[in-house]
């Protein structure tokens, strides 16, 4: 068959039969204004913004609802189309309150964008606007609804009907009284509710958590992977680097989903989305040493000196390391090279994040760690690992270790007490404060995933890369650099120059990862080889 081509705005483009004109244009970098169309939702064709002229068709057609034909010639930028789109926008804006100063959507709002693109600059509307009765009302744990700003594109309705199949959102009443709402007295009852905030092209649905925290134009973003569960949904970390007085000094203000057709399509669950506060709250910033008479803060380098001494002094076989499935592949590999291979330390993967029965058939997994699969591969663990908390003591062996390094996990308190009573030296390497960190003899602060680059392997075996978003807090260091510091102090010849280089070493040494590189992981990650 010959090539199937369409011509849009004079560019001849190869198209897939059956695709819509709008999707074809978007896939090829031609932007046609649209509100109701969303690539992850069924086509509704009700906003009329994507009108285009198709040669041979007398009336303008909506690009989202028109399927491409071979040889079709489409214009989206001529005067006729512009005029029509301008009038559509004028209609959409008739009842819009234009309260941009107090609207959180301002800055990422479809109305603002297209107004700048095709809008009329003087309103011709002399009548009174229809004021819908409700100003911002919460319609769920995370979502705020402001019916005045709604343009009835029905994306949210379609999301709850087609994606979550929970049907909470609907359009009630008729004509210019029509409004979106939840059933009277009801609320959003799905675990993906905040996605309707993302897909709302205007400020009708805004996020209650983000509400008034920060204007969106202060935010920068970095591509990343959600650390909330083993799914590894692709996210963008939105952080505020310049105005620390907003949001009470929190640097990371929200996670937004990033499309990846192989993992999460366009969506993100609420649990993962609102897991971001751990990046800034209750962080361990400086190393701490527990001595007689209290806890003393010390520099990371001094803490590493101390830890190296302890590692040297501890008899081999009496040191144990509790891995964390929150570590990146790179961090795990550094731990493997130093602790398991060079020092012969016993490495266990404890499981502190499994919530049985929590999974659903969409995105949410039971395993709440982003990199359990990676830890299993790198440390050659079987299906019985991770070790459940109640079996941890048995896992540590008959004789309790002299020196126990715990990575991030919070040990069950009976075990913790028993270890301390038995005289075990407890070293906590971690990002956030917990009871184990409070009880540890030595605390080494680590950076969280957002403060470094690296990769996670999701439960299916897809290796995905995350980028650095914010700088480390205080003295916190990436785990691999801690291991490198220890290696230097112990006279072990190991070099970890950075995540990309570590990943290169990793791919050279571990079969499952062979052939991968940081570069090959963009944009959608890559599958490991089958073990």
């Amino acid at each position, binding site marked *: 068959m010959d090539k199937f081509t369409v011509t849009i705005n004079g560019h001849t483009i190869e198209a897939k039969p059956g695709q819509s004109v709008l999707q074809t244009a978007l896939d090829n970098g031609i932007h046609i204004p649209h509100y109701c169309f969303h690539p992850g939702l069924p086509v509704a064709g009700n906003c009329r913004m994507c009108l285009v002229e198709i040669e041979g068709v007398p009336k303008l057609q909506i690009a989202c609802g028109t399927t491409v034909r071979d040889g079709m010639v489409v214009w989206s930028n001529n005067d006729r189309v512009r005029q029509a789109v301008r009038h559509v926008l004028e209609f959409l804006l008739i009842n819009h309150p234009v309260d941009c100063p107090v609207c959180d959507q301002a800055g990422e709002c479809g109305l603002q964008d297209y107004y700048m693109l095709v809008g009329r600059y003087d309103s011709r509307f002399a009548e009174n606007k229809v004021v819908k009765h409700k100003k911002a009302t919460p319609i769920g744990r995370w979502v705020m609804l402001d019916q005045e700003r709604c343009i009835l594109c029905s994306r949210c309705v379609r999301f709850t009907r087609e994606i979550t199949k929970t*049907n909470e959102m609907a359009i*009630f009443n*008729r004509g210019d009284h029509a409004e979106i709402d939840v*059933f*009277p007295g009801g609320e959003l009852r799905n675990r993906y509710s905040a996605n309707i905030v993302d897909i709302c092209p205007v400020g009708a649905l805004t996020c209650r958590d983000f509400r008034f925290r920060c204007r969106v134009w202060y935010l920068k973003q970095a591509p990343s992977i959600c650390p909330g569960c083993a799914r590894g949904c692709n996210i963008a970390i939105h952080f505020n680097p310049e105005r620390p007085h907003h949001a009470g000094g929190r640097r990371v203000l929200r996670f937004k989903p990033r499309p990846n057709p192989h993992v999460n399509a366009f969506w993100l669950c609420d649990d993962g989305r609102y897991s971001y506060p751990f990046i800034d709250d209750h962080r361990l910033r400086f190393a701490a040493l527990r001595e007689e008479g209290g806890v003393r803060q010390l520099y990371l380098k001094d803490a590493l000196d101390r830890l190296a001494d302890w590692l040297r002094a501890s008899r081999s076989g009496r040191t144990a390391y509790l891995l964390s499935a929150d570590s990146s592949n790179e961090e795990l590999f550094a731990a493997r090279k130093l602790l398991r291979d060079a020092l012969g330390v016993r490495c266990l993967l404890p499981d502190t994040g499994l919530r049985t029965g929590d999974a659903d058939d969409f995105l949410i997994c039971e395993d709440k760690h982003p990199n359990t699969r990676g830890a299993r591969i790198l440390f050659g663990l079987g299906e019985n690992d991770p070790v459940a908390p109640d079996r941890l003591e048995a896992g540590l062996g008959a004789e309790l270790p002299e020196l126990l390094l715990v990575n991030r996990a919070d040990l069950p308190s009976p075990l913790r007490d028993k270890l301390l009573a038995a005289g075990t030296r407890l070293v906590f390497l971690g990002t956030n404060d917990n009871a184990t960190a409070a009880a540890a003899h030595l605390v080494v602060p680590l950076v969280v995933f957002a403060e470094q680059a690296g990769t996670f392997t999701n439960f299916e075996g897809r290796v995905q890369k995350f980028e650095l978003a914010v700088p480390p807090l205080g003295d916190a260091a990436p785990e691999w650099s801690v291991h490198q510091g220890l290696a230097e102090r112990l006279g072990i010849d190991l070099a970890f120059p950075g995540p990309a280089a570590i990943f290169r070493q990793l791919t050279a040494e571990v079969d499952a990862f062979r052939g991968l590189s940081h570069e090959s992981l963009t944009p959608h990650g890559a599958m490991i080889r089958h073990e």
Partner: protein
Amino acid sequence: MELSDQLKQTLDALKEQFPNGLSVLMPALHAVQAAHNHIPAELEQPLAAYLAIPAEIVHEVSTFYFMFNNRPVGRHHIYICGNLSCWLRGAETLRDHLADRLGIQPGETTADGRITLSVVECLGMCDHAPVMLLDGEFHPDLTVETVDRILAGLS
């Protein structure tokens, strides 16, 4: 509030005639309205459960059509057309006249619960404008006098 057994029987009969819950919704709503004078908001959820469809869709449909009343209405329901043809031929005067005679605003019901007055868009009888619909019956080519006569004839 629950669906009465009688209503359930009616609904069961209707369900026989339609392939699924969504398609039976409109006749079901008519049945509810026939039984309850209007569609009580509290009945929407039981109805949705009985038809196995989302309650939101029931509410969507019941608020969309002007034939479905979401509030109690009078024994007689006057729909007077306010759209272009009727308006050009004096529907506005008739509307004001009706409102005066009944002492209510469009959309309200008289205090004794006798008559409800609603203004609607087109009734589809532009050739006999102005038109009103009273208890399912069209009254074409209205004047103030004919309106008075019709009102006088109501119980």
